[in-house]
């Protein structure tokens, strides 16, 4: 067994253990943190495949941004575990069906030669100065530019929709307007009144 194999098995062991942990631990915060661990070990596995850009972007996007907001929400919510568990047996057959389909699909991919699917050849190792990022960028912006832009527009629509759903203009809301605050002049706020001094009568 070579050194890389050992690293691979360590990473995959941690990945499987943490992925199991995500769905079995009782505390939702632990569950989110284990998902972070799963992402990081998965990035490690991708690095072993020389997919450095994907590995780092997985950490940057999912660990650095998505999971932070996820954790944020999970921590803020007061989650009642008993209520979450209520419908378990009711939904169990449906969940089991989906699990069976997924296992079937995965086994079709993994045992490709029995189902007549050609196995992918091992990609040739590249030189040290081969930039995976540049290659990916070139493909995204030339060959797959329409698909890429479509995906970007989809994300934009989702973003605009989320804002449109939550944006409410309330009439009774009071909030400061910085530009008005800056433009305020002395005459607007201050009134100098001449009051005659009281005479000291003795």
């Amino acid at each position, binding site marked *: 067994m070579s*050194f890389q194999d050992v690293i691979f098995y360590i990473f995959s062991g941690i990945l499987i253990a943490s992925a199991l942990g995500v769905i079995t631990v009782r505390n939702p*915060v632990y569950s989110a943190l284990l998902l972070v661990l799963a992402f990081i070990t998965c990035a490690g596995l991708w690095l072993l495949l020389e997919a450095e850009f994907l590995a*780092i972007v997985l*950490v940057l996007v999912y660990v*650095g941004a998505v999971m*932070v907001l996820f954790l944020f929400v999970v921590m803020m919510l007061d989650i009642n575990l008993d209520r979450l568990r209520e419908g378990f047996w009711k939904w169990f057959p449906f969940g089991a069906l989906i699990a069976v389909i997924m296992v079937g699909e995965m086994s079709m991919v993994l045992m490709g030669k029995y189902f007549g699917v050609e196995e992918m050849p091992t990609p040739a190792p590249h030189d040290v100065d081969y*930039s995976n990022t540049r290659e990916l960028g070139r493909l995204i912006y030339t060959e797959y530019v329409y698909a890429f832009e479509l995906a970007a527009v989809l994300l934009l629509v989702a973003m605009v929709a989320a804002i449109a759903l939550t944006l409410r203009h309330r009439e009774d809301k009071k909030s400061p307007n*910085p530009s008005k605050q800056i433009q305020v002049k002395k005459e607007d706020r201050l009134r100098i009144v001449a009051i005659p001094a009281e005479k000291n009568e003795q």
Partner: protein
Amino acid sequence: MENIQRQFEQVFGTDWGSMLFLLTSNLVLIFAIVIPLLLCVAYLTFAERKIIAYMQIRVGPNRVTFFGIPWLRGWGQPIADAVKAIMKEIVIPSGANKSLFVLAPILTIMPALAAWAVIPFSPELVLADINAGLLYILAMTSMGIYGIIIAGWASNSKYAFLGAMRSAAQVVSYELAMGFALVCVLMMSQSLNIGDIVNGQQGNSFLNWYLIPLFPMFLVYLISGVAETNRAPFDVAEGESEIVAGFHVDYSGMAFTVFFLAEYSNMILVAALTSIMFLGGWLPPLDIAPFTLIPGFIWLLLKIAFILFFFLWFRATFPRYRYDQIMRLGWKVFIPITLVWIVLLGLIMQLPESIRNLPLLNIWF
């Protein structure tokens, strides 16, 4: 070095030997970076106290000295502080989540130190010369927030949780502006490798540094860097006047010190990145005799110290931002500026050759 590698290969076999040699040599190099870095952190705290003291017409720490040498008065202060922190008891609140409470400071300092792996100190002096160095740094700095969120939650205290929430929202917002500013840098350098980014700024003088064509991006990056490290005037995550001390209110002793170390090593990291991306890294300001004689390593350190001085200067000068103003600055000012600058830069880079060869423009494009 090669002799040692050969010995490793003889003992453990070719495959395992070379890998184990790589592992041990890298461990030694990691220590060679981390130990001076932690010393720098210690003396940065001293510099901060001294500089802010002089700005406020005080003297600052002037008691602890080494072996009673009078002109070293105050210089022993960081060492004394460290000893004090080590001796103190780490109190774990009874309502806290113990394992996460202990994990949080470790998670904060890990990315702050790990990001140093790709920082080049001179053309040859870099631990990991990887192609996607800039992305690696972005990934590492974005992970630093976990320690703060977990600390806030695990302390089981309202103040700590408020601090953690503020910090999370703030860091995620400023990361966008920071990332866009770096996109401008990599558009100029056409590379994600940090060594290549510095080499792209090589020329006759400091006019070639990305500071000049990307000056607004330099400002955006520096200010976002201050916000990312939760330093004054963006230190609402601590906000001692409103939420006591924010996310680390329940920490004591060494556990608190680790947060402290992480904050300062992040400051040094942001300063190092600013000097590498915008101030030409190890390059001298003028490519003539007296400047080129000084080694590149010293130039980088000088630039880092210069940027760090700004951090301390900001802290001594500006009052703390209100939270909604922080959000406004990040989302409504910085992100539009960076987006406009990216488009502008792209347009300039696509201009015909004859226009790009005009004087001034031909320095950068």
